[in-house]
Structure formats: structure tokens, C-alpha cells
């Protein structure tokens, strides 16, 4: 299946990656090539085959739902590009 410029624009939007209008045709071409490569999978008969969700047959462990860590907001915020008064700061979200 080939990806057109409009689909490339939509995918970039969904992925939250800014792509200049002029670069969309090339991006569409690259994505199309990769998808064509993936389409070999259509040759495989997967009728009745379960999709793999865990590569090792294991049951995830359970533990009590309780706080086991935390209480250090300074450490959590220490790498933020913009942190103020114990919060992450971002451009205005709500008018």
C-alpha cells in the first residue's frame, strides 16, 4: 500500500513530529517503501494462529497495591527543561 502526502501529514501529526510541507512527499515515499517491504507478511497463512503477546510463557507477578517509592519531587523535577514551584511548566494549555 502506498502512502500519499495527505497520509504522511496525518501520521506526522499523530506522532507529534513537525514535518515541513515541502518534506512531506519524500517522507511519503520512504514510508511507502518500508510498508511495501512489510507487505511480504501477507503471503503467510496465519489462519488460527494466536498473536504473540509474551515471548516467554510467564504469568506477571502481582504485589500489594501500595506506595513503595517516591516522596522526592526535587529529584523528579531535576531534569525538566522548565520546572517552577514543584511543577513542570509548559506553554499555556487552556485559554
Amino acid at each position, binding site marked *: 500500500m502506498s502512502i500519499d502526502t495527505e497520509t504522511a501529514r496525518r501520521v506526522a501529526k499523530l506522532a507529534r513530529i513537525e514535518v515541513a510541507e515541502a518534506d512531506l512527499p519524500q517522507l511519503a515515499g520512504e514510508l511507502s517503501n*518500508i510498508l511495501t517491504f512489510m507487505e511480504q507478511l501477507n503471503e503467510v497463512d496465519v489462519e488460527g494462529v494466536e498473536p504473540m503477546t509474551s515471548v516467554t510463557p510467564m504469568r506477571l507477578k502481582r504485589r500489594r497495591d501500595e506506595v513503595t517509592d517516591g516522596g522526592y519531587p526535587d529529584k523528579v523535577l531535576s531534569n525538566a*527543561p522548565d520546572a517552577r514551584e514543584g511543577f513542570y511548566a509548559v506553554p499555556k494549555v487552556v485559554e
Partner: protein
Amino acid sequence: MGELTTLTIAEARDRLRAGDVSAVELTEACLAEIEAAGALNAFSVTTAEIARHRAEQADDRLRTDADAPAMCGIPIGIKDLFCTRGVASQAASRILDGFRPEYESTVTQKLHDAGAVMLGKLNMDEFAMGSSNETSTYGPVVNPWRAEGSNKDLTPGGSSGGSASAVAADLCLAATGTDTGGSIRQPAAFTGIVGLKPTYGRCSRWGIVAFASSLDQAGPMTKTVRDAAIMFGAMAGHDPKDSTSADMAVPDFEAALAGDIRGKTIGLPREYRMDGMPAEIDKLWSEGAEMLRDAGAKTVDISLPHTRYALPAYYVIAPAEASSNLARYDGVRYGFRAKLEKGDGITEMYERTRAQGFGPEVQRRVMIGTYVLSAGFYDAYYRRAQRVRTLIKRDFEEAFATGVDAILTPSTPSAAFGIGDMADADPVQMYLNDVFTVTVNLAGLPGISVPAGTDASGLPLGLQLIGRPWDEAGLLNTAQVLEQAAGFVSKPAKWW
């Protein structure tokens, strides 16, 4: 002091205990080699102060504790994908510029607890996405090997390219790597060293920057199979902080190196004999099988019929998981945030941060992953790929059920290629590097690349052994037999 850095872990361990070398001396020798090897661009950060401090602690421990672990005092490099407390950890991506984790990955903590000395962080492909170490924000890593009579720079492979170059060039005694589709084994093959990808779940993924969580595994990159066994023992083990880490005992892998593979059955998968495979790879593979037969093993032809669908399945599953894992890089919590124009809102901040922070290959994979997971395409691509993954794993299960103990294949379809050689190639051409290794990640199996020979121009070539789940001990034993029979002892001529 140069010759100290050529020691294996096993040799250094024994000499540290004999008292004829100290961890401080080993560490200083490595730091000097790293300093002089800027041309390789293998280390992104050198942590000399931390290294000296840990080396002194290791020497104290070796003096007072007769049972100090084998890794005590061993200087190693750490791939930049591992979070290390207070030390730059940015997965070779601009988007993690300035990130200094407040925590330590489980694997590096275990190595620290065992007394290993961290020399610094190792260059890699951005977010471990690449097979040539050319997608790094720190610039490409250069392979210490050159073709005979040539001074052209070659890639060390990827994504653990810095780890591979650093070990091959004797800048450190060993290094950590990670492997999602071949990122330990392919660079190990390109640089003439040993690289082990353990069974999925053997090493904790906690604190390792995630690429594709159902495929990622950490492992050792070393000069010998014995060293891989020693270092792997220090990295492996259950971790409650990684829900997929296996709660199983870790055997003594070094003790399992009995050197006897009589009566073992080695499978040779016919689907790995690819069209257009270079004759010298084919020849090396046949010679490897002969060596194992000479050592008393039996070889049998086996079939892994879905092999050719492994790469397309991988390039659906890995980008899908990556698009989800990399959603966290939003310019809010850590790393890089793009400069905003007046009036820009939060959406512009996300989109511009990710456009400027991610390199082209990462952007491509995030977008492919986004597409195959999007409404209307999920079943056609992602779900189908997961079903094919089930079939690929089943192929291996059926081979092992017939009594096969391990599988022998080439590690890569070629020797190391030149930096920039693939610049104009279709991205899919680069993906073909993983053709022999990616099946192992999809099936969650352990795999190891062992240096086994050279091509016509004197560049190293590797053979891969694939083992049963959790049988790294048996796999390492067979690998050591192959290593000794192949007798690969060449080192790159020093030009850097």
C-alpha cells in the same frame, strides 16, 4: 601500560588476585588508551573520577575479601542506553541532551555491586536504531579494523558500535551492550569480539532506555567466551522492578565451560543460506560446522520455514513498540525542549521538540510505528506481525523438539562496510544487516556471535550460535569450543 588493557577479564581477575597488578593501574591504563583513541569516537563521556574512585574501592575489597566477585576491579565501558546516576545518559539522542538520571539501571548497579569499574559511556546508534552507528548525535563510531591496504574508515556495526570498537581496540576489558534485533551480535562480528544476547527476561531491562520492550535484552561484549560467561553472571538475575524479568536461578556460567560437546546436536537451518550470500560467509559457516563435528558434535540440517518473514515482522513490531515508548519524549519532563515562537502552544512545543530532538531514522521508525498501530491498520500490520512472530518462535520450538541443542548460522551477511556507504541506500537495505540475528529476538532465545575468521581483505567475520531458552550455560560451552577451534587471535593494527 598499554598491554594491561589487552588483558581478558579472566586474566585480569587472576592477576589482581596474585597482586601483580592493581585495579587502579588497570583503570589508569584504560583511561590513557581512551584518551588516545579520540579518532574512534567510541566513548561519548569518560568518567575518570568515578573510575578512579571505584578502582580504589575495588583494590581495598580485593585486599580484604578473599571472596570478592570475579568482576571486582575490572574496568568496563557502559553503553549510553543504560541510565547511570549523575552521568549523562542520552541514548545518543539530542532529545535527551543534558539528561542526568537520578537513578541507576539494575544491570549497571549489579556490575557496580560486583566491583566493576565504569570508565565511561559508549557511543551507539540513536535509541539503538541502526546497524552502523551512524545515527548517533555524537557522530559515527569508527571500527578499529581496516581492510588490508586501505585507510578507509569502516563502521563497527550497530547499534552497540561504541561498545564493540572500545573492546576490539583494547580501550576497556569489556563493555555492556543491548540487542533488539542484532545490536550486540552484529557489531561483535564486525569487530572480531564476542557478543552474547541472553534469553529474553534473563537481564533486567529496568533503567535501560526502552526501544522495543518485547525484544530488548542487555548482554556482555567481551574479548573471549570465558569473559562473556563471567560478565554475564554479574549482569543476570531477577529484578522485581522489571515485570518481565525471569525469577530463575542464575547458574555459574564460567563453571559450565567444560569444553566437551561430544554427543551434542547442532542444527544448520537451510533457510539461512540466502541468495546472493558472499561465498566466504558460506565457506566460514561450513568450516564452523566442521569444527563442531571435529569436537564430537553431530550436525543436522533443519528447517526454520518462516525465516524470511522475520525482518518484515520485526520492522512492524519494533517500530510499533518504539512509537509507544518514545512518546515520553515530549520536552516536558527531561532533556531537550525546542525554542518556541511567540504564541506557540503546547502542541507546537511537542511537535517542534520531537522534530529537532529525534534524528531522521528515529523519526521514520516512530512514524511507521504510529501508522501500523493507527485505526484501520492495526489488524493488517501489527496483529498480523504478532501472529507471524508466533510462527517464527514455533519454528525454533519444533527444531529443538527434534533434539537439536544449538543452531549454527553466520552472524552477518557481510564483513564491516564503510562509513557513508549506505547513505544513499534505501533504509530497507540497512535493515538486511539483521537478517540472521533478528529471528532470535523475535523468539526470545539466547544467541552469541563468536569471531571465527576473516574475509579476503582481512576483516573479521563471526558465526552465531543460537541456544534453547535459558540454556546460556550450554550455549557458552559450545561457543567456547567453536572459539578455540577457530583460533581467531588477530587484533586490528593500531592506526588511531
